[in-house]
């Protein structure tokens, strides 16, 4: 969807977006208190995701004619920052569902396909998963080996996808598979439903963080995929994947902002509590510097993120801008979380404080949906072109 309305005037969100932000903030306060538990017990945040569905938060990137709220990329960014500031596992689930799956289907599927899948996706009855990575293709996505062989009115799909967010809990999978040999033009995109024969959930990863969000292998054994589940046309898969990632990167940038904000808030709270014997503020100067630097960068990279989102909302290509946002915000989230542990000290590392969880959760933002060094090369290429 594209919009020509001004969403950010002189760096302030429009009244509609401010209202939406408040709504999401209330949702987070009501439903996302269990982040520590999802983490400790590697438990999927089902209740918060269902509540998000009921509140309409899973339809922000879907057009109104298919039941969506069509709020666009900027609204998604605003929402995802709020959610990730409270619970990163819920955040990534919604980010993948909205920013990758729903966005992709909305942009590249035909009307019949949209009518088929969106009713279940916008309510959260179905959750979506995005299956690009494989064991031998991470940053080098075009090296994928999963195959979809055309046999009459269907394709037979074989292979295995790795590091699939929501892998064990999703019902709809967007899968990139090879329909021809050409490294790039041999890749096509499909929708595969989890209930079909041959679709299996493989190994579940045990991870540093993001432990409430199941990351699994998806194994495809002779899966019969009807031809009308091909997205767009054969050979256009890589283009679709890259285009979608621009939006996905804004989702992860917003995740980074949310994590950074939560960590900075912990530091701020700690500093406010530092008092000398007479009750006067006594935060150490170097801690205050770090706090000031991190808080300044948070504002700055939020603007980078919002800039890219407004471009995308206007239908303008934003690969360079999205890469800037993701690269900067994801690195900030890690610096901020590490600083929180350093400054809170023993308390921050003790595991009954959110700081150490944020440190573990933050680390993934520099890796998935395009590692930092890839983002940097995208930026350099974009600017020097």
């Amino acid at each position: 969807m594209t919009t020509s309305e001004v969403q950010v005037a002189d760096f302030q969100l429009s009244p509609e977006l401010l209202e939406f932000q408040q709504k999401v903030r209330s949702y987070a306060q009501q439903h996302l208190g269990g982040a520590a538990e999802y983490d400790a017990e590697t438990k999927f945040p089902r209740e918060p995701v269902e509540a998000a569905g009921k509140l309409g938060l899973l339809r922000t990137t879907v057009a109104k004619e298919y039941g969506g709220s069509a709020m666009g990329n900027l609204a998604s960014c605003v929402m995802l920052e709020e959610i990730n500031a409270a619970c990163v596992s819920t955040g990534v689930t919604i980010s993948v569902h909205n920013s990758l799956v729903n966005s992709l289907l909305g942009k590249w599927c035909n009307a019949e396909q949209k009518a088929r899948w969106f009713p279940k996706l916008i309510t959260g009855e179905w959750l979506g998963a995005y299956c690009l990575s494989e064991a031998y293709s991470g940053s080098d996505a075009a090296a994928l080996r999963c195959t979809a062989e055309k046999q009459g009115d269907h394709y037979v799909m074989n292979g295995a996808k790795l590091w699939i967010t929501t892998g064990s809990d999703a019902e709809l999978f967007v899968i990139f598979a090879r329909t021809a040999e050409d490294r790039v033009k041999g890749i096509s995109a499909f929708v595969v439903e989890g209930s079909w024969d041959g679709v299996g959930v493989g190994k579940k990863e045990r991870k540093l963080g993001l432990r409430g969000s199941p990351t699994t292998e998806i194994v495809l054994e002779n899966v019969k995929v009807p031809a009308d589940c091909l997205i767009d046309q054969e050979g256009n898969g890589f283009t679709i994947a890259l285009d979608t990632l621009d939006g996905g990167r804004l989702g992860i940038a917003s995740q980074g902002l949310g994590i950074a904000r939560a960590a900075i808030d912990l530091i701020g709270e700690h500093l406010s509590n530092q008092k000398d014997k007479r009750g006067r503020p006594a935060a150490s100067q170097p801690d205050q510097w770090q706090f000031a630097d991190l808080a300044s960068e948070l504002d700055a990279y939020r603007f980078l993120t919002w800039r890219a989102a407004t471009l995308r909302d206007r239908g303008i290509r934003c690969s360079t801008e999205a890469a800037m946002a993701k690269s900067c915000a994801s690195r900030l989230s890690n610096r901020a979380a590490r600083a929180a542990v350093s400054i809170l000290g023993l308390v921050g590392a003790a595991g009954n404080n959110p700081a150490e969880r944020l440190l573990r959760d933050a680390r993934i933002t520099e890796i998935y949906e395009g590692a930092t060094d890839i983002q940097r090369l995208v930026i350099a290429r974009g600017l020097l072109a």
Partner: protein
Amino acid sequence: MHNLQLTEDQEMVVDTVRKLVVDAVTPKVQELDEHRSFAREWFDALSELGVYGLSISEEKGGAGMGLVPYVAALEVIGEQSASLSRLWIGQMQAALALEDAGGDLLDEVAAGAKLLTFVGPEHGFTFADGSLTGSATMVPAAAEADVLLVAAKEGDAVVLVTVEGAACSHTALRALGLNSAACGQLACEGVVATVVATGDAAEKAIDRAELAAWLGVAAASVGGGIGSIEASKKHAGERIAFGKPLLVQQAVQRKLVECGRAVEAARQLVWQAARLADLGQCAKQTAMQARIAAVDAMVLAADEAIQIHGGFGYTVEYHVERHYRDAKTFEVLDGGSDHLRDRLAAMQFT
């Protein structure tokens, strides 16, 4: 491997420790960490090697080999297990703190018959009328230690006391790292304690315990940094992306060169501090600098290792996420790096 120019005896200690690490530690390190299992068997295996008396003087029943082989051996252990390093460090703190006082407990510490943990002055325990009061979080082996050696305040004076581990209350923690060292919360409410040293003797004992921690954590962090670099080299040498091994990419090489440089610089500080201490010179500032630099280098190396591993690095099987957690946990122990910076400032500017 390194250029510490150890004597043959010292080299033998390091080789023996290395063999234990390869045979017993490496195969189980991931499993124990993931299940947060306490590494008592490794601690006991080190006892059998007799290393806990390594740096105690011969007249007090130790090997009198100084701190140089201690840092060399901890580097080897740290490459695999920060948790085991930390247990040895606690034991070494106790050994050095108790050395002057001597007695049965020192012998038991040196023999590894009892597992000790040191609770530093930063936790603010108080001692009065023969009993100890205070609480601390993130104490390694909090629940597992046979004896706690506590630096406490008696009025305005410093006193070093021991309490039985069983006499204190403990709470386990899901801590960030050092999962096999069982960091926990510890509380004493008027627990009967035995005075080991008071006055200048207590100050000196605490000084030595702190030095053992700074040097030990620094050496183990150097090892941890090496562990991350080696894991990265291995992975990047095998992993193919864009048609060639990752290790061929300038991107990956540059990261590893910078990590190696940071680790090597920290290592030179550790060695220098250990050498100074063994020569009887003041090693305090250099040891604190080493501790700060080495932990930072370990954090850097683990962070880059995760990045080089990509998605694999975020999973538990590739060790580097453990190094990352352990490095940040090392950082906050012993008062934390910023506290050390402030102490360095106090020594240098007042």
